Each structure stands twice: as C-alpha cells, then as structure tokens.
C-alpha cells in the first residue's frame, strides 16, 4: 500500500512539474505594446539552442536579441522588430520544422541558420517560398550557391582559407607549414581544402597534413609529432577553440614552439576555463570580431551583452547575430517602404534588391563597409589578430 501511495505521489509530482514548466515558456520578444504608429517587422531566427552546437546558436541569438532590444528602444525609430527564435538542434530535419513554424507564425525574413548543415536543408524551402535568409555563420559556399535569396554575413570557407594562405605568405610568417584540421567537420575541411590549393599556388610548403575526426578528441601528440619531425614553423589549424587549446597545450608539453594560426572558429580560446592563457601568447587568428576592440560600437555592444548575460564576453557568433539584425533593419529603412504590411515574398524581393545593389553598404561589428554580390557572398576586409598580453592585438 505504501508502495502504491508513493507511486501516485510520483505521478502527481511529475504532472505538477509539467504544468509548472508549461507556465513559464515562451520567450518570443514581442514588439513593445506602445509602438504608436511604428511599423512592425517579424524576424525569425533559426539556430541550435540545444544539443552539441548550442553554444554557437545561443551566442548568435543573444547577439541578435541585443540588436532587437536596441532597435525597439529607439525613440525616433520608425520600425520595431518582433523577434522569434526557433531551435534546430543542429539537425536538418528539425531545421526544416523550425523554418515551417516560422512560416506559420508569419515571419517575414529569417536570420539563419547558424550552422551549415541545417542551412543547406532550409535554403531550398526558403528559396521555393521566396523567404529572405541572412545567415550569421553558415560559412559553406554551398549555402548561397544557386539561390538568390540566401545571403551570408560571414566569410565563406574558401575565402577564409585563401586569405589565410595569402596573409601567411605576405607577412612571411613561415615557409614550412603544418596543417591540422577536423576532417569530419564541413567548416574545417572547407577552409583546409582552399588553404591547400592557395598554398600550392603561392609556393607555401605544407610539410605535414594531419587530421582528427571529432571535436571531442583529447590527444593530438601524433599530429604534433608529425609536424615537429618535419620541421614545420607554423601550424595552421582551421578548427574550433576547444581542440585548438589542447593542441597548443600539448605542443608546449613536448617543448615544440611553432607559430599557431587559426580562423574565426578559434575565437573564444581565451575564455576556456582551466586553459593557461599565457600559452596562447603569440597565437594568430583571422576573425572578423574583436571583443577587446576600442571603437564605440564594439564597446557599447560588449557592455550591453555583459550586462544582460552575467558578464559573459560575446563571441564572434554574437557579433554576427547582432550584425544580421542591423543589416536587415538598415536595408528595410534604406528602402523607405512600409515593410510591416509586406508579405514574406515581397519583403524578400525588396531585400534582394537592396542587398545586391551597388549603393548599399553596411558597417557593423564584424566589418566596415560590407557589400554583397548577387550570389549572396559578402565582401569585407579580413582582420588578423595576435594574442598579446591576454587580449587581441591587430596585426
């Protein structure tokens, strides 16, 4: 009997928990009530908010939310934004559902997806429906390929690889280069492939090329040993910051001190808990955003981000998300049309026209005077930073 009672109690508890949770859902940011005669633009967002890639999606979402808050708080603004983030769990099937949800809820344009694979799944649907997509960080060129309605605010993988090789060559950083990348990751592989081709063209010698297959990998001594014995002076690693930090640590352990060069995925390496930051001294990375930047826009963004999210330092993904919102906002304002009554298809045509026009430029946190080609690729300057005294210093 006692047994039975406790079971019923458990059932009741679970039920009550269910209702309690149900009560506290929904963090869709509605447009402010008192928006007077301001027009409302419904912006959707798709990114991984749960699962293994949640870190990137959550950052981009937070960045975008800061931009939305700023725009909605403008006293003289004519446009407010209703922001609707949806989770894709870094999965193509779920991303399609998320997109359809946004469509059902009347989104006029989509910021996303944050990661490449979901983006590739959603883009054909968005293209067929004529829904404008601006991705903060899906870097594969396949995302925009053959679709006039999909734009990127980040560099594509080949651009990143080419520019890195060019930079290493121009600054004469090294003549013998080792390449370590994750061959199970589209981003890493995309950059590495372009880098290899460009390096061959420029006469940079790649003496060692090694791979690993998961960002959970813990031991890189084999790769490092290979680079060391072949005399590489610089290790190019287009990978995310977690494995990168381990590589740097393990190289120091085997008293091998090459130069390290990474891409935007390495941004965040200084924020890793338990990582000895002094080891990262001299590490170079090509990333569009610098949270230590001294310009007003960056300072303001970092400040509001820290204030809103418990002192967390925004990553490059957050800056990308922030820029996406402003790019669409600026484009909508530049057109001078009333976008609030527009259907998604009309808004899409308007955005395509504005973004691909020669006169439209956008300056944000991740670059000055960005312009877009008709294919949706962004053109902006690359910036390389060197870690000096625990902060990024421009090179």
């Amino acid at each position: 009997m006692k047994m039975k009672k406790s079971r019923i109690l458990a059932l009741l508890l679970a039920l009550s928990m269910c209702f309690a949770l149900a009560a506290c859902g929904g963090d869709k940011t509605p447009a402010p009530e008192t928006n007077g005669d301001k027009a409302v633009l419904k912006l959707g967002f798709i990114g991984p908010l749960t699962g293994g890639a949640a870190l990137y999606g959550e950052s981009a979402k937070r960045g975008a939310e800061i931009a939305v808050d700023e725009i909605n708080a403008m006293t003289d603004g004519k446009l407010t934004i209703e922001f609707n983030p949806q989770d894709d769990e870094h999965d193509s099937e779920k991303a399609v559902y998320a997109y359809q949800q946004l469509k059902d809820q009347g989104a006029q344009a989509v910021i996303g997806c944050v990661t490449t694979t979901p983006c590739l799944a959603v883009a054909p649907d968005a293209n067929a429906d004529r829904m404008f997509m601006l991705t903060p960080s899906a870097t594969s060129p396949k995302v925009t390929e053959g679709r006039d309605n999909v734009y990127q605010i980040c560099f594509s993988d080949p651009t990143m690889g080419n520019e890195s090789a060019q930079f290493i060559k121009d600054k004469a950083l090294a003549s013998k280069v080792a390449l370590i990348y994750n061959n199970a990751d589209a981003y890493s592989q995309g950059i590495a492939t372009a880098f290899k081709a460009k390096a061959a063209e420029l006469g940079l010698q790649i003496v060692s090329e090694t791979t690993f297959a998961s960002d959970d990998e813990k031991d890189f001594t084999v790769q490092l040993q290979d680079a060391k014995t072949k005399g590489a002076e610089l290790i190019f690693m287009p990978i995310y910051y977690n494995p990168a930090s381990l590589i740097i640590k393990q190289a120091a352990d085997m008293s091998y001190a090459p130069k390290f060069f990474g891409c935007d995925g390495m941004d965040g390496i200084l924020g890793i808990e338990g990582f000895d930051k002094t080891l990262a001294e001299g590490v170079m990375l090509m990333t569009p955003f610098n949270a230590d930047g001294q310009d007003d826009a960056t300072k303001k963004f970092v400040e509001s981000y820290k204030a809103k999210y418990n002192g967390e330092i925004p990553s490059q993904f957050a800056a990308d998300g922030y820029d996406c919102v402003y790019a669409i906002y600026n484009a909508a304002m530049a057109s001078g049309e009333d976008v609030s009554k527009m259907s998604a298809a009309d808004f899409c045509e308007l955005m395509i026209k504005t973004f691909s026009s020669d006169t439209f430029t956008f300056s944000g946190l991740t670059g000055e005077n960005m312009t877009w080609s008709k294919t949706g690729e962004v053109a902006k300057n690359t910036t390389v930073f060197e870690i000096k005294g625990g902060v990024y210093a421009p090179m």
Partner: protein
Amino acid sequence: MKLLRNHRAGLDGFINYGLVLVFYFIMQFLQNGGNLTSTFTSQLVPICVYMIMAISLNLVVGISGELSLGHAGFMSVGAFSGVVASASLMESVSSAPLRLALAILIGGIVAALAGVLIGIPVLRLNGDYLAIVTLAFGEIIKNVINCLYVGLDNAGLHISIKSAEALGMDTAGKLLINGPIGAAGVTRISSFFSAIVLLLITLFVVQNLIHSRSGRAIMAIRDNRIAAESTGLNIIKYKMMAFVTSAAFAGMAGTLYALNLSTVVAKKFDFNTSILVLVFVVLGGLGNLRGSMIAAALLTILPELLREYQEYRMLVYSIILILVMLITNNDTLKDMKQRAVMKIKTVLNGSNKSTKAKQAGGAES
C-alpha cells in the same frame, strides 16, 4: 480455437491497415481544405518514416526478442545508397515516382545486405552482447560514411575513402556524397503518398511474417531458445530472417527520409536516433505494432507542438515520456481499463442477446 486465433490476428492486421488509410485520408482532406499548418505538412513524410522504423525494429526487439541498438545504421545505409541510386538514375528514369520506387528498392537491398553481413557474426551472440555489437555497428557505419566520397560523372560512379579530389572525376562530375558534409543538394522526390504506400507494404510484410509458420518459430525462439532448439528449429536461420527483414525496411525508410530532405549527413544516424526508434518501440509496446506506430507518430509531432515552451520543451518532452511510462504500467489503471473493457463487452453482449431474444420473440408471434 486455432481458427479463432487466426481470425483475431487477421482482424488485428486489418485494423492497422485501416488506421493508416484513415490517417492518410484525414491528412489529405485537411490539406486540400488548407487546414494543415506548413509545419505539420512537412512532418507527414518523417512521421511515416519513423512508423516504418518502429515497425521494423519491433520485429527484432519485440518479436525476435533481441535488443538491437544500431537500427539507425541500417537507415543510414539505406539513406545514402538511396541518394546515390536516385542521382544515378536521374538521366535514365525521368518519372520521379518510379525513380523513388527504384531508389527505395536499392536502399532496401543494400541495407539487407548489410543486415546479412552484420547478422552472421552478431546473431551468434545473445542479450547484452548482441546489444553492444549492434551499437558498435551503428557507430562504424556512421564513421565509414563520414569518410566516404562518391561522385558521378560521364564515366559512371567514383568512390573514394580519401578525399573528393581522389575521385578523379572529369569536369562535368557531380559530388553525391562529400564525406562529413554528407549528401547536399539532394533532389527531393519523396511524397506523402509514397510514404503511405511503403508503410502499408511494411505492415503487410511484417504482419504476414509474424503470423506465418516462420513467425511462430521466431517467437518460440524468443520465448525459450533451448526448447525451440530441441524441437529442431534452426535458431540462426529464423533470427536472421527477422533481422534482415528489419534491416531492409529500415533501409527503405532511410531512402524515403533522405529523399525528403535536401541534405543528409551521417551524423544524423547516430546512437541517439537508434535510441529514439527504440523508445517508440518500448513506449508502444514490445511486439505491439499498432502501439509502436502510434508512439512513433505522437513522439515525432510532440516536440514541434511543444515549441512554444522554447528552452523548456526538452524537459517537458522527457517528463511526458516518464508520465506515459508510469501511466501505461500502472496496475490500478490497467485494472480499470480491463474492467471498462469487460463492462462494454457485457453490455454489448447483453444488448445483442436481448435484440436476438426480441427478434426470436417477434418471429414467434
């Protein structure tokens, strides 16, 4: 008595076909009336896919009684071979439904071959060992496809496990499977109708297998291996039959799934997907095809319905799972259900009797 049981089994099977058809017609009706949200429309094919997965896994876990944790591996094999088949047939077969049917068939055959290959060593094992090996198999498939490059050009198919450049394609070549990036730019040819047809075929084959002589042998092995063996049943043969049939349908479901999305990656078919399908089966009831179908449909729709709870939806989802487990296993509730069913039966029987009596009375007078 035997006749009665067969009759009952047949009726059970027909209820399943009926349910699927009712589902199809309701959805068609709603869609034509424009009453279906685009979210739900996009879920129709995946729902059927997961139903097929659940039915086929139920054949192994419920009927054959072997815990398989690598079912997504077969789905993966089917998905990628289906994508390659569909792309290769693009020129020669212009009709999309026919191409889809051929691709599904090829996906099923390749997955069945994988099933035979895996089955030979695996089915000599029992219980936990079998679970572990199937789990490993799922991971192996994932990793193999992760480094598989397949391209198509005028000379035919090129396959490499090194890199896209190693394929040596001519300039007109198209990359079908690009290692970890998976298959991108898949031409989507799956339709709800084709999914329903495949679901019906799956039900037909699996139900007939279960109610056949072989099916009874499979269940006998599940219930008591030693007793079954002593009556002269070939254990490996019957286990293999269930395992390979299950693999083939998982492969077909995989093809259907892949050709419904424009991009598939090997990572999708990992341990979690295998467990998800296992959850459908366990929740719906081991050996209960209808239950697992319903569970698959509900658990596919549920996360989308919970979207308004944003970050809490995963929690709500798991709590609902626990609740369902508690409720379906609650003895008091089971008793109540049993009593209710008995009551309805007696009432029905009673009214039958009384009408019969009335009729009889009427005839007399």
